[in-house]
């Protein structure tokens, strides 16, 4: 791919033997696909329930805060174009091993919980197609298949990545087409777009709740740091593609939420587990509703699969990095001889997600919500904290490792983004104080792991040294 043109930067110079393969366009679609799948299909109903017909405003604000966080990532990635992401930046800025380790553990647990809840979302859309198998079986098979796919390495295909992103976009465009059709028929009541219905809660809290929920629909963009090292001309193309992808996703989200508000009564949206499906079910387009519903379910399945795949690629990669750094046992760094995949890490990630799903079914409800959903919501606190910390890191690292080619995020915007992240974090804790206990519990597990490896860690490094001597 890099062959088409030979850019003049030193990075891509053929004689130096360095070739990078990901173009700005591919990175754009990677970001878009990663962000689009994560939550819009499920979250839109919750946001509508919190705010009322004007919930697109909450989406606009949430998406903007996420995009500002994206600019901090873009600045750091252009400074340190390596695959380690947030953990690397925090390590650079604060130099604290414990903090770095805890960030990694937080990120990992957020990723596990997110994969679990995505698998649940997959099962609920799947049941609209075929109601036969129990949800648990569907989720387990889903996770197992994705693990095998990652082991073989099918995900490495740029073509499949692009295709899935196009399918995701097509689903959301379908929603927009329905809305435009509805408007042209003259049935749309634009009054609903400024209708606040926040129930008993104070309007500012309601909007904050909506903003927080819509912010969650943007998570996933941080995974693009995965491919930073292989991006052609990263100083120019990375900020452009990352922020461009996020803004595009944001615009699509706002339009889709407007479309949903116009076509479906807010109560119906709020009460539906698969809210966007309701838009298709209205039968506004003169096509067979049954067929359209099925088509849309398939699209939603593809969208969820795409995002879950990226999560399942990221987890073993983090484990691999930690094994190299000797903070987790060396086996996580084991690479399969033929496939060159970190098979122990892959198996472990798959097993953890499956374990979560099984336990979640056996213990159906914790404090009124299913366990996996609960964990997903709790670990979002970690993500918010990491995002806020990344913005702080970005500001703190100003002046060090400066490179004139590096992208520089707008400072006032960063401060607004930091404030936004902290507000959402504050709201989440205020709304749900017990989540702090959960976070403390998960972090405690992390600390115990750290101490165990700290005191007994020398064993694993000696075994890996032994393994190298084998031949």
């Amino acid at each position, binding site marked *: 791919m890099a062959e088409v043109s030979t850019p003049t930067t030193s990075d891509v110079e053929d004689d130096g033997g360095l070739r990078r393969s990901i173009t700005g366009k591919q990175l754009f679609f990677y970001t878009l696909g990663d962000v689009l799948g994560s939550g819009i299909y499920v979250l839109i109903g919750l946001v509508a329930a919190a705010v009322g017909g004007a919930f697109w405003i909450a989406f606009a604000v949430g998406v903007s805060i996420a995009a500002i966080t994206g600019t901090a990532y873009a600045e750091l990635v252009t400074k340190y174009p390596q695959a380690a992401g947030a953990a690397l930046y925090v390590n*650079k800025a604060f130099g604290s091993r414990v903090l770095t380790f805890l960030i990694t553990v937080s990120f990992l647990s957020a990723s596990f919980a997110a994969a679990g809840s995505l698998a649940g979302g997959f099962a609920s859309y799947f049941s609209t197609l075929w109601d036969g198998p129990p949800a648990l079986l569907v989720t387990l098979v889903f996770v197992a298949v994705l693990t095998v796919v990652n082991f073989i390495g099918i995900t490495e295909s740029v073509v499949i990545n692009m295709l899935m992103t196009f399918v995701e976009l097509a689903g959301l465009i379908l929603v927009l087409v329905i809305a435009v059709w509805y408007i042209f028929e003259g049935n749309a009541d634009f009054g609903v777009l400024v209708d606040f219905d926040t129930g008993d809660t104070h309007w500012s809290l309601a909007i904050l709740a909506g903003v927080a929920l819509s912010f969650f629909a943007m998570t996933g963009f941080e995974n693009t740091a995965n*491919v930073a090292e292989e991006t052609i001309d990263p100083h120019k193309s990375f900020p452009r593609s990352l922020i461009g992808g996020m803004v595009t996703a944001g615009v699509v989200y706002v339009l889709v939420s407007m479309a949903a508000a116009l076509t479906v009564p807010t109560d119906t949206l709020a009460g539906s587990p698969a809210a966007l499906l309701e838009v298709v079910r209205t039968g506004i387009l003169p096509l067979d509703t049954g067929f359209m519903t099925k088509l849309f379910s398939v699209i939603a399945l593809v969208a969820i699969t795409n995002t879950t795949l990226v999560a399942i690629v990221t987890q073993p990669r983090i484990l691999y990095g930690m094994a*190299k750094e000797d903070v987790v046992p060396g086996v996580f760094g084991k690479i399969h001889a033929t496939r060159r995949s970190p098979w122990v890490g892959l198996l472990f990630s798959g097993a953890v997600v499956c374990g979560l799903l099984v336990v979640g079914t056996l213990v159906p409800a914790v404090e009124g919500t299913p366990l996996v959903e609960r964990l997903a919501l709790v670990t979002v606190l970690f993500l918010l904290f990491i995002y806020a910390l990344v913005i702080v890191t970005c500001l703190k690292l100003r002046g060090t490792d400066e490179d004139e080619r590096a992208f520089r995020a707008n400072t006032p915007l960063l401060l607004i983004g930091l404030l936004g992240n902290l507000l959402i974090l504050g709201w989440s804790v205020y709304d749900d104080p017990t989540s702090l206990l959960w976070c403390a519990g998960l972090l405690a597990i992390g600390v115990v792991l750290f101490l165990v490896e700290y005191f007994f860690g020398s064993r694993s490094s000696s075994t890996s040294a032994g393994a190298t001597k084998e031949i």
Partner: protein
Amino acid sequence: MHVIVATDGSRQSLAAAKHLKSFADPAKITTITVVAVIRPYAAVAFADDLAPASGKPADFDSLSFRDAADSATKAVAAVFDGWGPKVQVRIRSGSPANEIIKAAKQADAGLVVVAAGNRGLSDTVLLGSTAQRVQHSAPCPVLVVRPAPRKRKK
């Protein structure tokens, strides 16, 4: 003749390089290019098993797959030190089979040397082995070095 030696950082790829050296005539080889391919979308884009164990744990900063590919190519290139032909290293990224074939075409290579993994179930059941795809569409002869049958204890 220009020879491409591919490495994926595995010990088998080092064995393949040694195998080439064991029988080929250095006088007939003008250049050897050691090629490593980074797979950006894979969980681990490049793993280097050839680096000497430093004993010191790596830093988070060093999770650079490019560095891993770099050290793997150097380790393989070291096999040909002082053998005669000019040795150069190339790191590419993308799909391994495609990139090896492209490298062979660009260099107008006369031979490509690749390692094949285990003779096991995984090779026959799971599709898309790099060695198979390279020998299928390379522009020149391909030497596929298979692992020795297990007689040494593992």
